[in-house]
């Protein structure tokens, strides 16, 4: 990973790295340190007084079955979002790759959802599945299925997963498509000669070549599902019903900013910090290895 050739000197690199360091310290490390410190207290919302409770906030969290459940919810949600968005994107990318004409047009159209903010995506999907005015829920109702994600936790989860995956399909599609275009043409030809066996060959020959892209997208999508889906959940379900769509980040927000329980919220931030730290190291080690091939 290291460059063999490097420049000498230490003043210049320090100067170059300084802006980023400064911003990281001021807007990241200091606030993160504050969060750790605050997790040892139960403050009142206005910051007028606070009680030192040691690890009391963490004890409170761990004794809360809904907090423990939210780990599982987060895991299920993240896996579903990752799998759904990647499988659909891969399928579309393979299709587009087989086309000589028109692939660009499809790509241009498919790319749109990536540009839609999660909060806006939430609004669009809520609009389609709104139990009252939703077009999709209305037609589903005609088929005899009574759609009500407001009460049904499974439907709620399904809806936030689809809404969250939607924008990611575009993103993943771009990567898969580009990766497929870069696969040596002889390999594609070998796979394409016999149409009937296309998919089998695809899985045995082409997919392994895509594995770097697959792994990269796995990590990126899991991180996305962890954090950036906040807007989707906030607009569609607000974590309900019965906390069935409350993922960890949403809980930090709802306990801290709806419940005004800053102690618990800070403790949850610390838990997330640890979790993300671990994830980062895993990703880092992994990409580090991959750079070699």
């Amino acid at each position: 990973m290291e460059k063999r050739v490097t420049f000498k000197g230490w003043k210049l690199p320090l100067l170059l790295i300084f802006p980023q360091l400064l911003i990281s310290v001021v807007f990241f490390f200091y606030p993160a340190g504050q969060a750790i410190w605050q997790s040892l207290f139960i403050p009142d919302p206005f910051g007028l007084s606070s009680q030192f409770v040691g690890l009391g906030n963490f004890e409170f969290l761990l004794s809360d079955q809904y907090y423990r459940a939210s780990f599982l919810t987060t895991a299920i949600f993240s896996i579903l979002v990752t799998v759904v968005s990647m499988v659909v994107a891969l399928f579309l990318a393979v299709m587009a790759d087989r086309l000589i004409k028109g692939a660009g047009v499809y790509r241009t159209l498919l790319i749109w959802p990536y540009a839609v903010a999660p909060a806006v995506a939430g609004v669009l999907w809520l609009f389609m599945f709104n139990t009252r005015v939703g077009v999709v829920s209305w037609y589903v109702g005609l088929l005899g299925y009574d759609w009500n994600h407001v009460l049904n936790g499974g439907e709620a989860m399904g809806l936030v997963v689809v809404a969250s995956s939607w924008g990611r399909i575009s993103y993943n599609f771009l990567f898969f498509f580009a990766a497929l275009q870069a696969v040596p043409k002889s390999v594609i030809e070998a796979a394409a000669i016999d149409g009937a066996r296309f998919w089998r060959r695809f899985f045995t020959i082409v997919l392994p070549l895509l594995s770097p892209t697959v792994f990269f997208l796995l990590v990126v999508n899991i991180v996305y599902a962890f954090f950036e889906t906040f807007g989707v959940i906030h607009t569609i379900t607000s974590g309900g019903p019965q906390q069935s769509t409350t993922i960890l980040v949403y809980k930090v927000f709802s306990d801290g900013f709806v419940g005004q329980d800053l102690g618990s919220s800070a403790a949850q931030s610390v838990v997330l910090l640890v979790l993300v730290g671990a994830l980062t190291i895993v990703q880092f080690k992994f990409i580090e290895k991959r750079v070699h091939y």
Partner: protein
Amino acid sequence: MAQTRQSTQSGMVEKRGRSLWLTHVLMIIGVLVVFFPIWLAFVASTVTQADIVSPPMPLVPGEHFFENYKKALFSGINVPVSTMLINSLIMAIGIALGKIAISLVSAFAIVYFKFPGRTFFFWLIFLTLMLPVEVRIVPTYEVIAGFGMLNSYSGLILPLVASATATFLFRQFFLTIPDELAEAARVDGARPMRFFIDIVIPMSRTNIAALFVILFIYGWNQYLWPLLITTDPEMNTIVMGIKQMFPSGDDFADWPVIMATSILAMIPPVIVVVSMQKLFVRGLVDSEK
């Protein structure tokens, strides 16, 4: 690369005639499904509230396009949508450019220099990877307030620049730049900054473009942070504006205007993404390898 493949594949077109049609059909279905939410939002933005509240709403656009968009653009909630669009633009561009600038130089320092504390600084910066502002939002808010940056573009932008994603990608890319180039530069006696400006930056063009797209979208999509720090309606951004159009109490949602605003909110990022899609993909795929 596309051209070479085209010529070699053209021979197979006839053989694949039927399956090609099938592929087109599947693609079209895929595009229709993926595109449907946006289409529906557009339709909803051209009809009346009455058309929407008595389901099923129509699936083809109505006649109230101008009326709804005018209402959204020029009246909005506290401020017209046009003001929020400008704020969002400044915020998104500021975040994208700011992050690219500081990341380029710091990645250059990390890759091309050996200096005391390098590993330490390196990990310090990379620890910031991926931790969103939501998780440390209260203390961050206090920092911004302490600097008197509430209701300012710098307050909107700076905390979101504090993440290492761009630094990370640039580092990955710099590592792939052949050592010979740096070697040659060093033999020629070129100063590091000359090498940086003459060689590294031009070579990073596509990566910069790709990151610009990603960071622009990232900045544009921010919701919770602008909501907290912009107490002056003149500073609101559009994504938070849409959420605010939903009634908080005993009122009803004005769907046509909300949907018109949603469409307006996606136009700038769509333009960025669509117009830069090729650069975007190339830049990312290259650096990722």
